[in-house]
């Protein structure tokens, strides 16, 4: 279960990443941020963001046009 939810639907690159970073900054280590986005580029970008920052990408899925991510704060 996510500790915080971020609605990034309708936002284009790089806003989903910038908003996710801002949300993660306000969370504590181990907490989970759930994100919903509609930008198809966010799939590759969240993977790259997590591998670079050390935050863990717990899951990635899609439902229709919505891409869902769960990121655990490092």
């Amino acid at each position, binding site marked *: 279960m996510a500790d915080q939810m971020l609605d990034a639907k*309708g*936002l*284009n*690159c*790089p*806003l989903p*990443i*910038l908003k*996710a*970073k*801002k949300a993660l900054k306000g969370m504590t280590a181990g907490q989970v941020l759930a994100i919903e986005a509609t*930008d198809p580029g966010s799939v590759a970008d969240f993977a*790259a*963001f997590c591998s*670079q*920052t050390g935050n863990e990408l717990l899951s990635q899925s899609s439902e229709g046009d919505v891409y869902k991510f769960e990121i655990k704060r490092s």
Partner: protein
Amino acid sequence: MLDTSDMDNAKSMSIIVTKGSLDWAYPPFILGTTAAAMDVDVTMFFTFYGLPLLKKELDLKFTPLGNAAMEMPMMGGHIAMPNIVGMLPGVGGMAGKMMKNLMKKKGVASIEDLREAAVESDVRIIACQMTLDLFEYDVNDMIDGVELGGAATYMETALKSDINLFI
């Protein structure tokens, strides 16, 4: 709590920003803010036509003039913006409005928003002192937190950076 050894290993990037039209303002601000979000230390050096991007009030223009490859999506297809259209008076302003509307519709951030994100994420912003003098800009008309510097200031940073871009 603060692990300084980690900070010493932080990646760094510098960007020289030389162009201040609406379209050219995007690449440096998108890359700068995204890099900062990925824990990269970012320095942006604003010089020549890039310097006005630091003015408190922005009214960025866009012109299809000299951009032969430019196409705008229109009625399911694309329409080229030939140079002759760009030469008509008022077209620059109209193209700017069209571009801003298109960006809003597609959820693309405004330059103002990206610049604010850059400041918030501690991107180091340097205004070129020579350009300031040359074009008679007043540093008081620029956003807060701007540092003044020249080529040597940039070089000192660039020599230590993992990535250096000129845009």
